[in-house]
């Protein structure tokens, strides 16, 4: 028996009719046509399906869509806002991907990391990405991309803060 749910996805309120057994991943991909989030393992082990649920990274293959009722979801499609997010730019510049299948998941985990800690040490980056598996790259360039993105995020914050000061003065 389908149930109507309302959730905010990348800032937009969406109303969808879903079966209780449908995962958030399935609804994002099949009903909302947001196919950036990938299904790698279906069991929460690989992280390819990572989205932000109320700002927190989760494996969407283990969330029932009905559990997302009234909540906010952020997918990779919403990460760029006019311009690429520093992590997206860094992944491209440093070639932090090959086949790209794991990449959306890594981007979401990295966005969450940089939101809570814009100056992560390498071991903190690796711990933050422990739930994302990559079969192509060997992780080195992914970690370097996060470091580069972190520098850019800190610089952007610095510029923003100085702009605020100038305006206030």
């Amino acid at each position: 028996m389908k149930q109507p749910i309302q959730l905010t996805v990348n800032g937009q309120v969406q109303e969808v009719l879903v079966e209780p057994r449908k995962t958030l991943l399935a609804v994002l991909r099949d009903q909302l046509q947001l196919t950036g989030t990938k299904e790698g393992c279906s069991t929460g082990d690989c992280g390819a399906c990572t989205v932000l649920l109320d700002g927190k990274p989760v494996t969407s293959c283990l969330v029932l869509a009905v559990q997302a009722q009234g909540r906010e979801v952020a997918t990779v499609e919403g990460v760029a806002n006019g311009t690429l997010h520093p992590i997206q730019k860094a992944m491209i510049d440093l070639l932090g991907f090959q086949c790209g299948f794991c990449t959306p998941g890594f981007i979401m985990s990295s966005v969450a990391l940089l939101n809570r800690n814009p100056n992560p040490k390498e071991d903190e980056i690796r711990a933050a990405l422990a739930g994302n598996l990559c079969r192509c790259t060997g992780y080195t360039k992914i970690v370097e991309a996060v470091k580069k993105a972190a520098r850019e995020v800190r610089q952007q914050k610095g510029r923003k803060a100085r702009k605020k000061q100038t305006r206030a003065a």
Partner: protein
Amino acid sequence: MKSFDYFAPTTIREAVDILAKYPDAKVLAGGTDLLVHMKLRVRTPDVILDVGRLSGADALTIDRKRGLTIGPAVTMRQVELSQAAWKTYAGFAQGASVVGSIQIRNLATVVGNVCNAAPSADVAPGLIALGAKVRIAGPKGRRSMQVENFMTGPGQTALQQGEFVTGIQVPVPAARTGSAFVRHTPRGAMDIAVVGVGASVTLAARTGACQAARIVMGAVAPTPIRAKKAERMLRGQRLSEELIAKAAEVASGEARPISDVRASADFRRELVRVLTKRMVTAAWEDAMSKTRSKRRAA
């Protein structure tokens, strides 16, 4: 997954009524065990009862009288990020912080981990070392019992028909109590404990001797178990590296591990010996740090 009906009640009464109406309903918290089983068709419930919308479900609160209250939807990540939990219930916080990955910890719940009742449940040794209780609601009303007695076998709990766990309560530890937990896994994340050991130590006020001790071993028996002989060796004694090493040897003998894909029984026994030594020492140090801060505060 097979189709099912889904309920997310906001009151315990509603939840109990639903479980009474649908005796084969399964309770859903984080879904990191249940949904995996359902996808594999190991479990095929027709009805799911989600405890995530119960009033106070995600409340993790500390109270000077009642201690730590853990709602049924409190996630591992909430505990991991709680300074208050680490400060007073370190053995428990440590267990919550090593489960899976950040994504899994943002979904997986403490209560769900206990109810799933794997012998390797990571929050169990710490909770048992700290004397935690599960709170249960059912058709006959409310009751509570020690976590230690609640887990009765692999995947089995003491829940009766129509009952579910509404939360976990960890009492205020006695003064000068420290706790610690560690597990051995081959990987740094996304793994299941080969062996887990949680310990708590309470030091006597004037002498600094060990007034009470608990040693809880995970993944070496059908449920997490206490090493009671080893505990008795420590009780009433002044702790020392030597004594702790002897107790760890005894704890190792009390373990009843099996050999499986993850490790041989022999290796597990050796791990118990090593990890018990480390965790009793760590719990002792945690207890002493509280003694020092008490003195500073005085």
